[in-house]
């Protein structure tokens, strides 16, 4: 039986009187690459923020490797907020990549990547630097180790952000629209890195608008609409024969746009 990397049970999220997630159940196994698709406002990003506990859900539970996230459960079943230190330790096991990169501008590329390993994992600076350089080679940015983020392109910054997450050797990676704020010609270089990780069977949940990525690199597609999971299936099934009318309409709209403007992938991608 596959091991559950992250699991959401009955996760609902309210912003004021607006319910943006309706009792989401989802279980991601180790090695799965899940693409989360859906129109804007369908709750994809909110789901990701609930999975990382950056936005604790109004209702429901999240389990990281079977361990309750963000909530301490006493032997008598009473629940309380998990201590900040324990929550921080849980979060360090989840890598998150944001739409707007969120690199720390006052630290160099190397500083961004070694911060977590040194401060959280307790690695010696030398060890952390070695680990960081190996990862920078992987994402093709070893030459930029001593550069400050502001001097990098968006695509480079996002690759550094991925490297920063990888340096923590997380159990899974969450991507929140990692290419949505990039110029079209820079999307390819970031997707290449994510596809490389997918090929290595890194457990990933990727919220994205990149249909081509979802159909080629994902092992599973979740389609969301109106704060609900409408479809949860294999990419091949989803793209060839979507079960739901809403998925069909979404695909038609998106594919029409693709036909007009082409994929965001760079020419050589």
């Amino acid at each position, binding site marked *: 039986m596959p091991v559950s990397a992250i699991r959401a049970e009955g996760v609902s999220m309210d912003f004021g009187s607006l319910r943006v997630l309706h009792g989401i159940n989802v279980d991601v196994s180790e090695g799965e690459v899940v693409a989360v698709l859906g129109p804007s406002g369908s709750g994809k990003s909110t789901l990701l923020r609930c999975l990382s506990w950056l936005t604790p859900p109004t209702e429901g539970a999240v389990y990281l490797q079977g361990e309750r996230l963000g909530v301490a459960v006493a032997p008598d079943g009473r629940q309380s907020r998990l201590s900040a230190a324990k929550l921080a330790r849980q979060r360090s096991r989840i890598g998150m990549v944001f739409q707007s990169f969120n690199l720390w501008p006052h630290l160099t590329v190397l500083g961004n990547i070694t911060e977590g390993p040194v401060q959280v994992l307790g690695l010696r600076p030398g060890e952390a630097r070695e680990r960081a350089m190996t990862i920078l080679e992987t994402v093709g940015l070893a030459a930029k180790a001593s550069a400050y983020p502001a001097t990098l392109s968006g695509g480079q910054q996002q690759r550094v952000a991925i490297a920063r997450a990888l340096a*923590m050797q997380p159990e899974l990676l969450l991507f929140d629209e990692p290419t949505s704020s990039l110029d079209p010609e820079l999307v390819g270089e970031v997707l290449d890195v994510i596809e490389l990780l997918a090929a290595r069977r890194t457990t990933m949940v990727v919220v994205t608008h990149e249909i081509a990525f979802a159909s080629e690199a994902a092992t599973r597609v979740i389609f969301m609409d109106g704060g609900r999971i409408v479809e949860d299936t294999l990419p091949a099934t989803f793209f060839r024969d979507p079960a739901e009318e809403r998925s069909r309409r979404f695909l038609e709209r998106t594919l029409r746009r693709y036909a007009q403007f082409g994929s965001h992938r760079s020419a050589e991608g």
Partner: protein
Amino acid sequence: MDWSDIIPYLPDLARGFLKSIEIALLSAATALVTALLLTLASATGNAIVRAIVAAYTEIILGLPILVLLYVIYFVLPKFGVRFDETTAGVLTLTLYYSPYLAEAIRGAVAAVPVGQVEAARMIGLGELSILARIVVPQALALMIPSATGILIGLVKDTAILSVISVEEFAYVTKQVVSHTYAPFETWTLVAAVYWVTLALFETLMRGLERRLSRFRPKVEFH
């Protein structure tokens, strides 16, 4: 015009100058600490604490510094709270300038994007580490320009303490003038010293800002 008349009084003027610097440094330090406490107090969730901070800020912002000084030095003793001149002066400068500095700190902290804090949380950094290693290093650089302006105001306002006979630079100068009858030369000299001191301070802070924000690309206009 005869500059030689004031030469015998240079040691007195120097003493006054040093006293002003001492008061300014002390007041700046206590005002910064108070400002930090005000910022932290208004950042906590407690509504009562925040209301107190807001009321304090409103009262201070609505008073001329001279009036605040007189209240502390002349009114409080009627209620049994008595300070010597220097303490009353430092207290006045601290109370008067801490809300402005608190606002500079608050603005600088708020200018650090929340996404950077979220990224730090996902790496597993604790809240204190996030403050110390992500927020403060950036906020420091961001607050320097506004804080410099506020602190220059504080240094200049040390001269107001002369009205309660604190023996600072302006007070001593007045005394010297009453002996030398050379107001032109004496005040010209003193004005130049104030100006040079503040210009040096400003240059120092600008250098510090450049150092602290060397990661940030400069805006260039063509």
